[in-house]
């Protein structure tokens, strides 16, 4: 099988596995599978419960349930939340917009800034300024993102009153939205930046000792010319896949930041669902997040094979 064929197979298998996992978990966890599927503390009449049991197919064998499951998935039916009285897919798609609004710009900004400054730091690894810069970003890298957000929220919103405490907007105007988004977006960007910075710096450190960098210098290229005309691209390629894999981690971080800043995206949705044990929401969110992460990886893979001529000309 060709290389791209193998890769495609892996993505499909991953997707399949995770979806199946999602099927198996509520049904194999301790407790009544119905509770696991509905959520706890759901008030329903006994007759309705019986009805539901039949409807959800819990009285049928596992293989049959499995097929049902897949049929529902393909119809984009992720179940129903009894706590919120809406279908799971509706809620999730509505909330996801906000999460993406927060996460995507921050991610891209963080990636670009992180790669550039990380490259410079790796290149000028001896300079004092860059050493301090590295120490700074290392500290951010090691701090749990929600913790840093808590502190910033306390200092800038609570104490100084510079930024609003909660939510996405009060009046809905663009300025207002920006005002609300500023802190969480900054935190996200910082978080994404620090990770990309460290990875890129490491990669450049490895590449800068290579012979082709020395030859570029011997041709008369000066300092940052060597970095940006040669080393940068070579250092970026091996870490594109790393950066893509990090996407999943950063997305999780976004959820936490959302919770701290009380934004109404997926983060708060999951948090509330956790508190009320609304399992359908939790599972649905997990599925959607997984799809996003796998797509990001797929994208990165495609990007990489287009950028690296060694892969293209295999």
């Amino acid at each position, binding site marked *: 099988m060709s290389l791209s064929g193998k890769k495609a197979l892996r993505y499909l298998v991953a997707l399949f596995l995770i979806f199946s996992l999602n099927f198996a978990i509520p049904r194999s966890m301790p407790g009544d599978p119905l509770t696991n599927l509905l959520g706890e503390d759901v008030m329903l009449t006994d007759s309705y419960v019986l009805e539901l049991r039949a409807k959800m197919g819990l009285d049928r064998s596992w293989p049959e349930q499995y097929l049902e499951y897949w049929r529902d998935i393909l119809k984009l039916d992720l179940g129903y939340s009894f706590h919120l009285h809406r279908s799971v897919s509706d809620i999730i798609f509505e909330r996801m917009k906000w999460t993406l609004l927060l996460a995507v710009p921050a991610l891209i900004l963080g990636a670009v800034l992180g790669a550039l400054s990380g490259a410079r730091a790796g290149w000028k690894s001896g300079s004092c300024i860059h050493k301090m810069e590295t120490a700074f970003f290392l500290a951010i890298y090691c701090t749990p993102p929600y913790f840093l957000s808590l502190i910033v929220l306390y200092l800038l919103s609570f104490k100084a009153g510079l930024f609003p405490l909660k939510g996405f907007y009060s009046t809905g105007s663009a300025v207002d939205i920006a005002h609300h988004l500023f802190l969480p977006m900054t935190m996200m960007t910082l978080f994404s930046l620090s990770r990309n910075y460290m990875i890129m710096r490491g990669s450049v450190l490895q590449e800068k000792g290579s*012979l082709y960098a020395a030859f570029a210098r011997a041709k008369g*290229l000066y300092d940052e010319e060597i970095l940006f005309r040669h080393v940068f691209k*070579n250092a970026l390629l091996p870490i594109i896949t790393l950066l893509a894999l990090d996407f999943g981690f950063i997305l999780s971080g976004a959820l936490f930041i959302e919770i701290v800043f009380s934004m109404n995206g997926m983060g708060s949705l999951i948090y509330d669902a956790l508190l009320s044990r609304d399992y359908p929401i939790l599972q649905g969110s997990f599925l959607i997040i997984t799809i996003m992460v796998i797509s990001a990886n797929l994208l990165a893979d495609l990007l990489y094979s287009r950028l690296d001529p060694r892969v293209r000309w295999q």
Partner: protein
Amino acid sequence: MSRLGAAPIDDPLLRVEGLSVSFDTAMGRVRAAQDVCLDLLKGETLAIVGETGCGKSVVANSILQLLPGNASVQGRVIFSGRDLLSLSEREMAEIRGREIAIVFQNPSLALNPIIKAEEQIAEPLQIHSHLPRSLSIQMAKDMLRRLRLGVGGVAESYPFQLSGGMNQRVMIAAAMILSPRIIIADEPSKGLDRLLARQVAEELSGLRDKMDASLLLITHDLLLARDISDRISVMYSGEVVETGESQAVFDHPLHPYTKALLDCLPQRGFHPIPGASPSMIDPPGGCKFYPRCRYKHDKCMQRPDMTEKRCPNEGMDREVRCWLY
């Protein structure tokens, strides 16, 4: 291909004076080169020969200040009335690739694997002469044609798609595209088979002729050195031990090491030199070759200076570092 009667010795293009290089390593201070003196004349080919590790690459790299950070360099390298070793990185960047160019040892690693060959050759044109990209690529392709690599889509290829010999020629093209006055070739034949090595060396020589440049050839291949260079400098353990006109040095070696070196050649009987080379971290005082020399006597415990020996029938004087002379 040797030419007698090159420019007079008192007007060299490049003069290396008292060059000493040492490296600070975990194992101690490595003295890679000691008091090396060389002259490179206009339009000539000077070969520096010696065993692996005798310090010849170090000398070549130090001319363009390309040594790593833990090197301490003393001495002077005079070019165009300036001491190259005293120049800043920015000033050196002006000279590298434009007036003095160097070709490294490992062609496949010295080229960036993910940038096309033509772009890497065009780069000096863009950096130094600020030519627009399209024009510089055109000139790069011309250069490749002169090196007989004009067909087969070599220009648009990436180094990982080309063979070692082709990459070597790409590197040479990049080095020569601005017609530098001096080309330093560091072991251009390394890793190539005999025939290819010769071809590459002859191409270098031919290009040098056309551009009227000088070539500093670093090699351990004695026969190659003899065939394409005008003068030869023999190095041993960081020092220059003999310098003279190539054919003459070959026919009548003066220094005991040179004699022994030539005796090692298969043509002369494959006689190895007994003993091992001295440590560069803790060098012995006196003549470095003393322990292994056939002609040693007590005076050799003191380090000899370079002496000139007149050789009227060779057209050029020889310089030898030996108490015998």
